[in-house]
């Protein structure tokens, strides 16, 4: 138990470091930007209507105060952190004066759900199929499956998502291609809503799964074909241990340990994929929010989305890392 606590402590330290460096980098990069957030905000607010100069001057003063841009950078930095720990990134421009954080929190559950479900499915399918393929190396079906995996795996998220959109939205329109849920349902714990959410998430999730499972499949297949030659597997086979036990608890279980590390490392990439997928399917998550924010030059919102993504991904990695000792008792002892 002590070993585990040390392990958790180390990881926690790392998590904090990642968040600190990531968010600081986010701050620095945005504050070195040539974009003056005040003028950008003014430009946006006055683009559609003719405002008189006095009103603009007043607004400029208010925004300058709000963004604190006339202060030296280190004081802005301290300010930034002190507001950040309260979850305050300032108002968004996209939805002025709604706080950027409100928008992020509204979008976050969609991304988290999509990402969690897609990752779990991907991880499960890839590893189970890969494990079986590594164990039964002569199975025709699994061999064919492997070829498909090699074929799809290297294609960028965008292309797969787009092909799905064309196939299921245009050629054979059976699934919804945009939005999070249909217009005629009430959000909440009711079946029409849930089924609508599932339907709308199908194509985005499918595109993530299609791109993702190949990597797990190939990795697991290679790992398993190594593990099956291990003595403890041979020995268990000689002892007549049940085949399902061997495949599950001896082969897959051991091969899963490095796969879990790989999962932690892959989460950042999966997040990138989610951004694309959301954009293609107009899904209301963090990704499309980020893209909107960039397109609108929304300073606060870009900062908020980036910081939250860094934190969220780092936290997800942390959680996966915490699972690691459960899978590998050797780590617990160290």
């Amino acid at each position, binding site marked *: 138990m002590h070993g585990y606590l040390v392990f958790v402590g180390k990881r926690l330290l790392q998590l904090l470091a990642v968040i600190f460096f990531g968010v600081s980098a986010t701050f620095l990069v945005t504050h070195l930007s040539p974009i003056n957030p005040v003028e950008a905000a003014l430009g946006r607010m006055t683009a559609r209507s003719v405002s008189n100069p006095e009103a603009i001057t007043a607004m400029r003063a208010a925004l300058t105060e709000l963004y604190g841009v006339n202060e030296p950078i280190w004081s802005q930095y301290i300010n930034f952190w002190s507001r950040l720990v309260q979850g305050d990134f300032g108002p968004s421009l996209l939805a002025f004066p709604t706080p950027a954080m409100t928008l992020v929190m509204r979008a976050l559950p969609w991304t988290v759900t999509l990402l969690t479900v897609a990752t779990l499915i991907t991880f499960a399918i890839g590893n189970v199929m890969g494990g079986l393929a590594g164990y039964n190396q002569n199975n025709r079906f699994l061999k064919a499956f492997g070829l498909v995996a090699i074929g799809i795996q290297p294609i960028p998220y965008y292309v797969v998502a787009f092909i799905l959109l064309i196939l299921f939205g245009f050629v054979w329109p059976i699934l919804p291609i945009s939005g999070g849920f249909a217009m005629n349902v009430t959000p909440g714990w009711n079946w029409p809503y849930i089924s609508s959410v599932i339907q709308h998430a199908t194509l985005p999730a499918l595109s993530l799964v299609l791109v993702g499972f190949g990597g797990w499949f190939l990795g697991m297949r290679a790992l398993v074909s190594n593990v099956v030659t291990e*003595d403890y597997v*041979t020995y268990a*086979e*000689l002892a*007549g241990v*049940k085949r399902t036990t061997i495949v599950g608890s*001896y082969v897959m279980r*051991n091969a899963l340990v490095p796969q879990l590390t790989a999962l932690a490392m892959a989460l950042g990439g999966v997040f990138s994929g989610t951004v694309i997928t959301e954009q293609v399917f107009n899904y209301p998550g963090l990704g499309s929010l980020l893209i909107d924010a960039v397109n609108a030059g929304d300073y606060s919102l870009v900062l908020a989305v980036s910081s939250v993504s860094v934190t969220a991904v780092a936290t997800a990695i942390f959680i996966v890392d915490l699972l690691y000792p459960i899978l590998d008792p050797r780590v617990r002892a160290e």
Partner: protein
Amino acid sequence: MTQNNNAEILKVEGLKAYYQMNYFGVEREVRAVDDITVTMRKNEVYGIAGESSSGKTSFIKVLAAAIRPPLRVVAGTAKYNFASGPIDVAHATPEEIEAVRWKHLSYIMQGSMSVLNPVRRIGKTFQDFAQRPLGLKGAEFESRVVNHLARLNLSPDVLRAYPHELSGGMRQRVTIGLATVCHPEFIIADEPTTALDVVVQKEVLSLIRDIQKEMGASVVFVTHDMSVHANVADRVGIIYAGRLVEEGPTRDMFFAPKHPYTAHLVASLPRIGDRQQRPALEGRPPNLADPPQGCRFHPRCPLAVDKCRKEVPPLETIGPDHRTACWRWKDVEPLVNVSAPSGEMA
């Protein structure tokens, strides 16, 4: 040490087991086990010696009923005579083999470090291995295992441990425990002491010996280390190039080997007070895909004559329980003066 009157537990007759491989369209056949006939008795420790890639591992695989492609039994039988009935493991169905596994026929694998699943608690492994053959459940099973472990000087705590939490010796004892918990009639021990330090090695050997005696089981003990054989085996068989070349009571084999290869193996044993390197046998073991004509040992044999190059020597009985396959067995002299090896050979 002479328990000749005991009944036979295993009778291997004319066993041929080949690896059949296909490299880039070329069929190759490796004759790993080439016509071995041997008998093993109840309640004895039979040592098998031989260099690596001599075919002893393949032979063991057949005995352990672990025949997997590309290894195939081409001819012969390997009949066990278990309490539950006779079984020819060379030709038995998987179900028949399943029925005797671990309950009657068990196996101690080499490499104590890697035969235990690193992510599974020892107790779980015991369940996986022994629950089905024992037909016990819950507390009954647990007490059986705990009692058995006690016999091996292991506390019940190991059941909750992971392999990496145990020392090498403990792990080996666990492995022996795994193989013997079902009180099998026949135990195959494949290099169980390799990679252990000398003290632990000794401890493990006596443990195997004790357990064997206590349970009245038969043990096939495989190692290339002749000194180990000297310590535990009742009889020793030497395998060279897929064939049994000599077989006899341990004492005879060490003091009066009747095959040049045996003589060499015995001579290469290190002894206290050695000043120089033991003479090494020249040449390498033959390629089993294309073994030499006649006696397979002839290219390396100091006594080889023309006949040896042309005709295969049969396995002749030359004394009580002593058989050899050499045209010139009468000319074989021990290469060094061997004093009686220490050990429990009473």
